[in-house]
């Protein structure tokens, strides 16, 4: 009896496997995302997958878990499995270069989404989110908003939560922000900590900062996940006088701004747009098109309570 069950199960598996192999597709596209632990990136991955599937491709999503070694292993597998194109969200602008180079040498076109690599001539195109400009926009609004709210204060102390230190966006956003805010003597950054782009870590770090520097009036967070964690900590401490600034345009923050919570602004990135574009360009490439601009900056926009009606999570309404 048991043997019969085993036979049936094996036969079923074989059937499934065989049909999977023979399904009609135009080709296989790999979507490699730096991490699926952050809803923003899940949106990035899903949009790419959806568009590529709409265009007739079989899509596999790979999660690099913010680990360049895992990313490298994925590339090994992708190259060995003979994928036709890679839609790639690099974990590290320098560390991921070797992976793209290997893919190129194996004849697989790579399209970078949201983040770029510090090399030219390797990826077919880099659809790159202009994080620096986002930081600048946020910095400008920060100055305007805080100066208005606290116009009687001679110095306005604030804290900064940085993202993953080895990721390019972390520094682009921070540098953009500081390129504006550091020009205004009233603003003093009293704390700068790394919260790994993670909500939980953002919460913990903010709690600590509130203990060490209760005088802060604002927290600038490199992404929305950290901003939400900071919001929770600030609300838990009952501090109604602290304002939080995020980056990403993620769902919960959009709702928070709509509801008038203490998160006052974020930067809208356009993950769906970037993913769709990458998928379409991959399709064009595979159909013979070779002319692509190497770097395509996708500019980001400032979202505040004043213009919130124009925006929905992850894009415009």
């Amino acid at each position, binding site marked *: 009896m048991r043997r019969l069950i085993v036979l049936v199960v094996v036969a079923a*598996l074989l059937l499934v496997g065989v049909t999977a*192999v023979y399904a009609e597709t135009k080709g296989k596209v790999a979507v490699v995302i730096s991490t699926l632990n952050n809803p923003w990136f899940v949106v990035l991955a899903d949009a790419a997958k959806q568009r590529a599937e709409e265009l007739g491709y079989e899509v596999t999503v790979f999660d690099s878990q913010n680990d360049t070694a895992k990313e490298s292993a994925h590339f090994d597998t992708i190259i060995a499995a003979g994928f036709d194109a890679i839609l790639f969200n690099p974990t*590290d602008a320098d560390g991921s270069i070797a992976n793209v180079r290997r893919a190129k040498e194996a004849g697989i076109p790579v399209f970078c989404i949201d983040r770029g690599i510090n090399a030219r001539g390797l990826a077919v195109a880099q659809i790159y989110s202009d994080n620096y400009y986002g930081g600048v926009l946020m910095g400008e609004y920060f100055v305007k908003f805080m100066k208005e709210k606290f116009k009687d204060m001679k110095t306005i102390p604030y804290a900064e939560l940085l993202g993953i230190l080895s990721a390019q966006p972390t520094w682009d956003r921070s540098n953009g922000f500081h390129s504006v805010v550091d020009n205004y003597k009233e603003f003093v950054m009293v704390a700068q900590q790394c919260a790994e782009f993670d909500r939980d870590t953002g919460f913990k770090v903010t709690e600590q900062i509130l203990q060490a520097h209760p005088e802060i009036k604002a927290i600038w967070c490199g992404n929305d996940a950290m901003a939400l964690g900071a919001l929770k900590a600030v609300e838990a401490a009952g501090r109604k006088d602290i304002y939080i600034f995020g980056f990403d345009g993620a769902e919960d923050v959009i709702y928070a701004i709509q509801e008038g919570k203490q998160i006052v602004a974020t930067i809208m990135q356009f993950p769906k747009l970037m993913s769709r574009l990458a998928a379409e360009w991959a399709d064009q490439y595979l159909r013979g098109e070779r002319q692509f601009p190497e770097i395509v900056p996708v500019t980001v926009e400032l979202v505040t309570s004043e213009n919130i009606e124009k925006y929905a999570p992850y894009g415009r309404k």
Partner: protein
Amino acid sequence: MRMLKNNQKVDNQTQMASPAEARKKAFDLRSISRYQSLIILGGLFVVFATLSNRFVTPGNLWTILRQSSVNLCLAIGMTYVILTGGIDLSVGSILGFSGAVAAKLLKYGLSLTAFGVVLQFGVMGASIIALIVGLATGLLNGLIITVFSVPPFVATLGTMTAVRGFIMLWTKGYPITKLGETFDFIGSGWILGVPTPVWIAGVITVVASVFLRFTRFGRYVYAVGGNERAAVLSGVNAKRTKLITYMISGFLAAVAGLIVTARLDSAQPNAGLMYELDAIAAAVIGGASLSGGKGTIEGTIIGTLIIGVLNNGLVLTGVSPFWQQVAKGFIIIAAVIAERIGKGRE
């Protein structure tokens, strides 16, 4: 499928009637149980080969071997440690740290501002120093465990955390990249049609296996793990034996660190994170017992390959990344249960 195979075996066991029959069945099972992990490996191989026509290609098979080389180095070191009844949780951090040491020395050298000079290192120098760092950390682990009698779990947990912190200090949180073609050869090169890391892991496996099987030290390792008191009473220096196993583990973790860093052409601050878990899994699936005294290098090789085939096959067959974690966990548990059941009949 795994569970069904195991159930089949259990089925056979419960059908024992007379003592003669029982002896015959037990004998069958023992020989099967010795090849337990091999059967599982073979089974997985067949399943994935059927489900994906890309699995059995030379490119993919070399990929599996190359990716397993890192874990194999860690797992062999872990086997030595587990055989003496200990455990080394710090191998992941040592991997990361030695890689970072090699990378920084290679790229920036050592700045001696007091003398107004920079000490620049070539691949050989940087690599040897990285290996020494691994050896030294292993020595530290060993000393904490033998001299201060701190339980291995706690001691290596401490070093794991501290060393990870050292990596952060050393790299200031940034990856160190662009290390040069010569160095990268360690991770990405091919010699006579075989990837370099596979050569490295292969040589280490042979040396480790011979060392364990045919030297006095090897016997001491088993003795200390099997029954430490008895071993000490028969004149074995248990403390020194254990110390050396931790040094071996640290050294091999450094080797793995060099391979990873060379392959990625960058030293990442989070390199090696959680790698100790795969190393322990490989050793345990391969038959090593966490209480010491049982296990072989050959078994560890099979265990490493099982994990390597799993990682590769699940991705190749397009299983969602979320299900991959679930599947891997269950299969590891199943493999160990199978091991237990088989061993339990001896």
